[in-house]
């Protein structure tokens, strides 16, 4: 059960896109870490957020809730959160909840960045 505490976030920037690389277990205990990271990004006035789930092993309801907590504010600022590279297990959790209706969930990071470039980024130019 100790494995659940292993959660990590690496934040990188590409242009005005903030890229979050999640790894390990994202549950009620570790959700606050993601929350803080997103908070910081918003404080820095960055609203194009890409979340890469490639190394995320598990996500719980509390983890999903974090995205819901921020999406409204980010979209109000013409930004977006795009999710990508989910493992099938993690995608299943998002899919069950109907997240694909609410969020752009993409197979690769490039697709997500492309989507930012084609659509959302233009709105602010």
């Amino acid at each position: 059960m100790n494995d659940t505490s292993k959660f990590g976030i690496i934040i990188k920037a590409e242009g005005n896109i903030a890229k979050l690389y999640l790894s390990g277990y994202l549950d009620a205990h570790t959700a606050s870490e993601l929350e803080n990271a997103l908070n910081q990004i918003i404080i820095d006035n960055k609203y194009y957020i890409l979340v890469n789930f490639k190394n995320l092993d598990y996500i719980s309801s509390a983890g999903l809730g974090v995205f819901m907590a921020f999406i409204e504010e980010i979209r109000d600022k013409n930004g977006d959160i795009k999710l990508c590279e989910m493992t099938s297990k993690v995608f299943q959790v998002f899919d069950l909840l109907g997240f694909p209706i609410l969020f752009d969930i993409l197979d690769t990071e490039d697709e997500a960045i492309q989507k930012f470039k084609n659509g959302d980024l233009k709105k602010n130019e």
Partner: protein
Amino acid sequence: MINKIKQKYKEFITSELNTSYIVLVIFVLWSVKIAGDLTFFTFTDIYSFLAITWRIITSIFILLLLTLYFLKNFQESFKTVDSLSTSNYFKELKILLYISLAIFVFNYFLPDEIQNYGKIQNIWLLIYIELVSIFSTVTGFYILSFLLKWLLKRKHKRTKIYIQILITSIISMIILEAPFHYYHIRSEDLTSNSLLIALSVILIISMLSIVFLTTRKNNWIAVLPKKKKWSLILLYLIGIFFSFAFIILSSGSDGESKFSMAAQFTFGTDTLLFISYFCLLPYFFKLIFSTIVTLPTTSFLERTNTEISSLTYLNRVVSQTIDFDKLIDTVTALALQTCRGIASWTEIYNKDNSISIASTQFLNEINIKSLDTNNNLSNYLQIFEKSVLIPSIKEDNTLKQLNWSALPLVNSMIIVPLRTGNRRIGTLVILHPDEYGMDEDDLKVMEAFADNINLALENAKLVQDSIDKERYRRELVLAREMEEKLLPKALPEIEGFTISAFSIPANEVGGDYYDIVKLKSGKFCVLIGDVSGKGMSSAFYMAQLKGVVMSLAPESLSASDLLKRINKTLYGKIDKQIYITLSALVVENVEGTLTFSRAGHMPLMVKTNISDISQEIKIFRPNGLGISLANNLIFDKWLEEIKIETNPGDIIVLFTDGINELRNSSNDEFGYVSLKQILENSVYNIRADEVINNLKDSLLQYLGDNTAHDDMTVVVLVKNSNY
């Protein structure tokens, strides 16, 4: 101009320049000077006008460089605590006395003939005289810097200005020495020039009074052990003896003394030494008096006692007080008392970066707010890592800008940073009415105080944490009890089906929900759901959900209608990061027709019997968003409702994600597959409660010694075979 010099001086003093370079230059200059003197000695007269002018000019350069050297050293000595210690004081005092003694030894070996510009016999005598001169110059500088250092260490309000006057006087006196050098050439007795005499006397008297006035704050003597006090008295007595002896020696009635004659070979030295010993006199006298007075116990010792007793008291408080606020109060009051201040306060830096005034003594929050209108003070206070003494708020560039009219009596303060662990949690501020009213000793006591306070705060914090933990534990128990009460105690009989359910709460309350309600049509609707997150908030949202369901179900027409109504009611009313997954299964008729709608919840699993030997497990996963994830337009648009026909013996399983995410000790998930297996192994005519029991057994067995970290809830319906 003056400012420019000041700035240059500051740059020099703070520069990394190695003092040995200065010493080297002084050495070279002195050698040049002596070489010149030797030339004059060999070819003309050592007391010729030209020779005297040569000495005055070279000496001025030497004196200037020596001044720089001593200033630099002086600055360094204030940087180290060690150099300001009492033991170092004794050491420096002893050195002073040794070199004073040396003066008399030097004097003894000087021949009488050199008095009154007598003839210097040979070149070796001249060199000896030059050496005596050098020694005298260095001694003069040593004595003066000794005096200034220890006067500044125990400085009071006017020390700085007094010392400036003193130094100006000394420079004036040295300049006054110049005419005397030339006097013998013109065979005039300048000692009878009343103007010069009067000027010298005025300067000397002013210097004496300045030293006398500046020698204050002698209470450090009081704490010395008696033995030290006696040795101090002895040292001072010797010092007084030497000073008098020197003054008599150099102002002998029979004109210039031997020693003065020698010293004069470096211009200014005679005067410098003369003044230095003069200044030592009031200093020694005053201190010897202080020492004698404090030989018996004095008030200072009592003060040390109050410090010790308040520290002891604090320690007792530390061990007894677990109340953080009470502790802050005690600390604020004790610190004030120890430093003899007029007011004090403690401010605490909260985790959300706000600042609260936790305790005040003899002032109130309004005073502090009006003092610090722009938050400059609280920002300033947070800078300090260590306890710091501000001896005069008028001299502190930041503090003097505050609105001190709010606290007109305050003139100095001590700032004590408070910590628990590595976190800076606040600042204790002690205010004092007098400039230089608190000293290094007060600061030291406050530093010791701060260590104790920090320990105490840490203790209080630990206790608080464990109380919080206990509170949290109790909250969990309450939340679990609450959830258990919200779940149905007995399930209704549904015609055509047997029905059974269980919910195993996790150690952290998970927010699982199941219920069976009647819709408007009177049809039964089985609900299963999960509130996101864990703990107390989940339990509350679950209670809210239960309330909403109970009020909406009797008006709802179908499974999807109920879910839509629930979403419409809850969307925007609960925290953004909270959502609910909920499935609704309506039993349409006794023949086994079901309708199913899913709001983001786990799929429905059905085991159907195609024939006695052939069976199939079907997963139903109609579209639908979780509740409160989207407004009713989007939610309603995406919510599907499907019709499922069941045959006798079919097993319908509704479950929460606690089941398929259940992990065992090797961290594998239980998963659909295992759930399927149990269903496959169930016999044809099994009842719902039997399925539940089998499931429960295998779940618990699978879990082993692990505790589930999410609630596990299952509702099972089995279609009766008698219809």
